[in-house]
């Protein structure tokens, strides 16, 4: 192992995490209190969360719960506003204005699978316009196709699009057109959050995209962050690459520098 958590000078930031229960299976520790203890145990400075209630059945109540968790954990939890593409445009805009005014809110979250809605559908347009005009990140789980992704990233060129799981599901061998888009488009990144990690895939991904295009995430509290952390630390990457992936990139792409600095000074 080239780097240990204590040797990473830059704060470690989990760019893809969750709070809340889930219907399909039991999440034994779904709440922020234990999650913060887990972050401490792993040496993780901060995590960016979306609430499972918002991804599942009630986007407005779920986003409220995110906000409440941010208020309980300033400087430790940042939040994604989950967009429901099924809501009226005016309601989405109003909620965006309300939620994104919170200092701990770092971006938007789309989940095209759970919301059963295409990335290119009109229901996402108000949020894409908002992200474009406010230069906000969107963590999106699902983007339909590499062609749709490319068109969307071009049209909403100021939005910073993070492809959830794209760097984790890649097996390190096959050509993946989504990764090509991430490499070519200046406003597209991938995260390496995911339950399946293939042998040797991460160093290949770093070779393919360069370390600045890769954000680290854990899917905590679905999954434990320990495995995802060790995956990076034991990958044989340079100290600089490790530092970028585990924190620097998330801080840059999600615009967390001032938020972290303020929390550190309080």
């Amino acid at each position, binding site marked *: 192992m080239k780097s240990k958590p204590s040797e990473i000078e830059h704060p470690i930031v989990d760019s893809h995490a969750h709070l809340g229960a889930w219907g399909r299976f039991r999440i034994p520790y779904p709440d922020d209190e234990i999650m913060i203890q887990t972050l401490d145990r792993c040496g993780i400075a901060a995590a960016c969360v979306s609430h499972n209630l918002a991804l599942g059945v009630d986007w407005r109540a779920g986003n409220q719960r995110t906000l409440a968790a941010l208020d309980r954990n300033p400087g430790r939890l940042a939040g994604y506003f989950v967009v429901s593409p099924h809501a009226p445009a005016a309601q989405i805009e109003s909620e965006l204005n309300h939620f994104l005014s919170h200092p701990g809110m770092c971006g938007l979250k789309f989940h095209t699978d759970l919301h059963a809605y295409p990335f290119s559908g009109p229901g996402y347009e108000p949020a894409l316009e908002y992200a474009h005009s406010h230069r906000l990140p969107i963590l999106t789980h699902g983007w339909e196709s590499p062609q749709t992704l490319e068109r969307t990233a071009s049209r909403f060129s100021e939005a910073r699009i993070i492809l959830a799981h794209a760097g984790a599901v890649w097996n390190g061998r096959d050509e993946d057109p989504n990764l090509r888009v991430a490499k070519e488009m200046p406003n597209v990144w991938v995260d390496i959050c995911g339950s399946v990690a293939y042998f040797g895939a991460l160093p290949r991904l770093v070779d393919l995209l360069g370390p600045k295009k890769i954000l680290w995430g854990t899917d905590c509290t679905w999954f434990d962050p320990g*495995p995802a952390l060790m*995956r990076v630390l034991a990958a044989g990457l340079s100290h600089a690459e490790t530092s970028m992936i585990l924190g620097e990139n998330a801080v840059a792409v999600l615009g967390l520098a001032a938020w972290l600095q303020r929390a550190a000074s309080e």
Partner: protein
Amino acid sequence: MIGPSRTPQPGAPESVSDLLVEMDRLGIAEALVYHSVARWYSPTDGNAALLQELKGNPRLHPCWVVVPHHAGEMPSPADLVKQMLDAGVRAARVFPEEHFFFLEPWCFGETLAALAEARIPLLVDWGKRHWSEALRGWPAIQQVCEAFPQLPVIVVREGIAVDRFVGALIARHQKLFLETSYYMGHRALETFVGRFGAERLLFGTGMPLYDPSEPIGMLLTSGLNGDAARSIAGGNLRRLLNAVRPS
């Protein structure tokens, strides 16, 4: 697993010497291994190759891939177990879905009985790639554990979606174990140990297909005390292998 792969992962070890280098890098002392030829070509050819390639390596313990004997491609269960024990093989692995057979006693019962008699642990691999896949195989596991209570059964690559039923089976069957290479729910190890103790979990990596650092990270950051972590990391498997009855 050792041997050539149909879809080799970048930098993944295939030979014994490469596997040992990777184990040294990760701090893994010993491993239970089967041969890729036994999984993807012929169990008997692969099992023979495994013995050849592991010869003289005390850190690598052979595990034979086993299928039912009815088709004539494997020795009778009694002969199979005798051959295993004579060759120092103290574990068996099955791929029921991949090898098109049923684990249930009506199909595999004679082999299961012979393995149980010798206390040879049976690793069951349903070929799962992702936790969200259907709950294949668990009714068969229940039947096998019920019918052969002395047979150590180790289910590999199970993920976060098993918690609603696996506890019922673990509580009911004292020789049922979970391998940890994909068991990575939030604080899953300590939660499991809190309910059932540390004796029923066996550390595994899934190498060379999967990244071994993840289950290592899971164990190292689990917050388990040293005794529990050591049991999972190797003590439990050593105990099972040492309990195999000589021929």
